[in-house]
């Protein structure tokens, strides 16, 4: 009975949401406080009901109610509790329910943002609710999570063992918060198109929502890449896989949007561009959902795909992107922009160039993702586009972005007033040049390695220089902690932290891409393998039983300069319920790099095949992503009223 309650709750929510949409459209011209109140209450009820329904589904997973189709297909009584819970979103139906839950939560939170003017707010809630009802219809008609089975199975089929992992338990929720969070800025844009009301306040209200979504996307993507790094056992962290691209494109666009909306907040220019970017960002999120969920692209990540649902998603896409674009076509020429000019050397130009390059980069990723499909549809040729394409197209486009990222914060609005501007650039160039030479002397690698490493140094120095000069200009002496906080609230520390994150990330990429070394060995128990200054001793190999798997575990001792460092235990796990095997790499992470050890096939007579990677600075990749997210959070805090009123 309990699952039926969840189903009924969803049906009721769908009816309420649909009713809200009609009510909103009917009262489009006069958004009184009554209308707002109705929409607010509706959003609250939607959120509560979907939340309850999600709790019920989670409850069914925890209690292993195998009369539900998705529970019997994705869970098992022997699975640890945390993976029973993460099993809720480890499948198509459950992940959509999570999507809708997050959407209703965002709608609920934004509906109480009364600082927004009422006509705009009504339309924002209206657009959000419209998307909500479309997705609820999708769930109810094509992918009902509460579907029962005819024949009750004795036990479930289990969750794909690759997905039974703490990194991946959190990856989809974070990514979805990012995807769905972009719906808010989308609704802001559509509401502006509908009501024609757009001003600096619009941008000010919208910016935190974009930043929240952007932070969640950053962390979500980083978690996914971290999972791929240690779980798939290939030693790589980014594969330019279509599903990864699907999450990366909204990230790139929302990065452009975060920067662009700052201009709009200062003065009323680039209105159309900001609106278009907001629509695009969410469109790419929808495209991400579409790509992963429809089976349009087949990839290693397509764990839950089904082509028959594609048509429905295409309809949702058609409505939720097509209609705003029609509105854009009609309305976008009617906005009044400020008449204001700016120099070539100014913050506006820098952000404009940043936007230009970021959107071009997104386009190259989009082409790389869709081109194989396009070719297949036209003449049946099957091609796959790999890192070679992206290294040749994406990397050169992003390089100028990083170059600019270091110097743009020196610039002021409208025109350059910094007298030391040329000096700072000279300083940056010298430091970067010296750093490059040092890098070259340390270990000679390709030109690209040098360029990538130098870019990281350039950006790092740039951010530090900017910070120091800001402190100098302020001429403050920090006598107590309050003064320090006051100063911090004056400068945009979030920007610095996020940009430092990019520099750290780049350093990690340089280390991982260009300075890593790989060893393939076949060794018996007792053998010693030497890799550079380190050496590995093969101690033993044994069978061990886990909670829902059997494991073949090898034990190695790692020595560096003949000193004991650590034990390494790579595993091969066999999951009897799912009849599948996973490779658990043994990774010793340190600040300066990882030792990554994978156990392959073999036996005690002929030896075991081993793959060992030395990955310098690899953890900086995810560390950098964390810095970026923290920078985003800082900038939200700084822009909140508490700090503005200090």
């Amino acid at each position: 009975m309990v699952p039926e309650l969840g189903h009924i709750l969803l049906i009721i929510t769908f009816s309420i949401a649909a009713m809200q949409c009609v009510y909103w459209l009917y009262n489009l011209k006069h958004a009184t406080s009554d209308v707002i109140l109705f929409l607010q209450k509706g959003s609250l009820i939607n959120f509560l009901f979907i939340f309850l329904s999600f709790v019920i589904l989670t409850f069914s997973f925890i209690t292993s109610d195998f009369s539900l189709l998705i529970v019997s297909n994705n869970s098992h009584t022997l699975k640890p509790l945390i993976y029973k819970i993460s099993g809720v979103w480890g499948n198509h139906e459950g992940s959509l329910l999570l999507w809708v839950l997050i959407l209703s939560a965002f709608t609920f939170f934004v509906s109480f943002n009364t600082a927004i003017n009422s006509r705009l707010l009504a339309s924002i809630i209206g657009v959000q609710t419209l998307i909500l009802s479309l997705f609820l219809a999708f769930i109810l008609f094509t992918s009902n999570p509460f579907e029962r089975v005819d024949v009750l199975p004795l036990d479930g089929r289990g969750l794909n063992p690759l997905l039974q992992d703490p990194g991946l338990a959190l990856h989809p929720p974070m990514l979805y918060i990012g995807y769905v969070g972009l719906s808010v800025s989308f609704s802001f844009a559509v509401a502006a198109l509908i009501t024609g009301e757009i001003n600096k306040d619009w941008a000010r209200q919208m910016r935190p929502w974009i930043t929240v979504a952007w932070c969640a996307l950053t962390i979500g993507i980083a978690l996914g890449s971290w999972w791929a790094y240690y779980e798939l056992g290939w030693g790589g962290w980014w594969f330019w896989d279509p599903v990864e691209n699907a999450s990366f494109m909204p990230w790139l666009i929302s990065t452009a949007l975060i920067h662009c909306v700052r201009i709009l907040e200062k003065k009323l220019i680039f209105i159309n561009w900001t609106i278009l970017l907001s629509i695009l960002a969410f469109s790419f999120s929808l495209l991400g959902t579409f790509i992963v969920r429809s089976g349009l692209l087949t990839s290693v990540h397509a764990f839950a795909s089904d082509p028959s649902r594609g048509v429905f998603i295409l309809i949702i896409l058609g409505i939720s992107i097509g209609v705003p674009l029609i509105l854009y076509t009609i309305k976008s020429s009617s906005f009044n922009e400020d008449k204001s000019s700016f120099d070539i050397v100014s913050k506006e130009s820098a952000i404009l160039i940043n936007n230009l390059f970021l959107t071009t980069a997104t386009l190259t990723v989009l082409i790389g993702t869709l081109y194989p499909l396009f070719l297949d549809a036209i003449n049946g040729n099957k091609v796959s586009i790999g890192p070679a394409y992206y290294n040749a197209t994406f990397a050169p486009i992003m390089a100028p972005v990083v170059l600019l990222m270091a110097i743009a914060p020196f610039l002021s609005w409208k025109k350059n007033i910094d007298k030391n501007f040329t000096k700072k650039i000279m300083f940056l160039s010298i430091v970067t040049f010296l750093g490059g030479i040092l890098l070259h002397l340390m270990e000679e690698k390709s030109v690209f390695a040098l360029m990538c490493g130098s870019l990281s140094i350039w950006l790092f120095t740039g951010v530090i220089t900017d910070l120091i000069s800001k402190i100098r200009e302020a001429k403050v002496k920090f006598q107590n902690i309050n003064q320090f906080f006051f100063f911090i609230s004056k400068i945009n520390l979030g920007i610095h932290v996020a940009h430092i994150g990019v520099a750290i990330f780049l350093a990690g990429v340089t280390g991982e891409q260009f300075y890593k070394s790989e060893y393939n060995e076949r060794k018996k128990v007792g053998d010693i393998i030497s890799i550079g200054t380190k050496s590995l001793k093969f101690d033993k190999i044994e069978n061990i039983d886990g909670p829902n798997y059997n494991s073949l575990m090898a034990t190695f001792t790692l020595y560096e300069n003949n000193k004991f460092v650590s034990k390494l235990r790579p595993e091969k796990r066999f999951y009897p319920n799912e009849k599948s095997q996973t490779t658990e790499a043994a990774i010793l992470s340190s600040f300066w790099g990882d030792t990554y050890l994978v156990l392959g096939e073999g036996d005690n007579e002929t030896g075991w095949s081993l793959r060992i990677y030395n990955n310098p600075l690899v953890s900086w990749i995810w560390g950098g992503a964390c810095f970026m997210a923290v920078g985003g959070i800082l900038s939200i805090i700084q822009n909140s009223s508490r700090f503005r009123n200090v």
Partner: protein
Amino acid sequence: MKHKFKILNALPLVVFFFIVLFSSVVLYKLKINNRSERSIASQLIGKNIPKILIPRENYIKRNINSDNIDFKKYHNQIFVVNFFASWCAPCKIEAPIIDELSKILPVIGIAYKDKFLDTKNFLNDFGNPYKEIGIDRSGKIAIEWGVYGVPETFLINKKGEIIYRHAGPILYSDFKDEFLPILKKK
């Protein structure tokens, strides 16, 4: 009036329109057409049918302890094995053709990853042309047969060898141009 319509503002809409158009074509091809499946030749052509037991499902008397489909019964005659599923849209398209086919040859249906009640409803709605129906709950039988997706149809000759495989729904044109010529030859 400030409503000066700029043609450039329609650009995003136009681009989007083409992307949707293109996606529809791809989806349509994924659903209906099976060129990609056809291009992959079956490894089983000219070989004996896989020796895997197929549990028979009796849709009139469910309680009967179902045994396995016995292919020896069809020795010395040409017969058809058709993988289908109630959840598969193209199977509905080919249902009338399978009906036609069953007038000439015995057709054995294998319900792929299907639920009993759904299959029963499917047969009620679209007719039951099958001599016997087996079920493949886990999808293992389909793997043995090298099935790419449903629907998929195999022609088996008098010696029990697979002589022809058709991936995807059999359209009337396929029936006329591919099945009938093969049958005439034999």
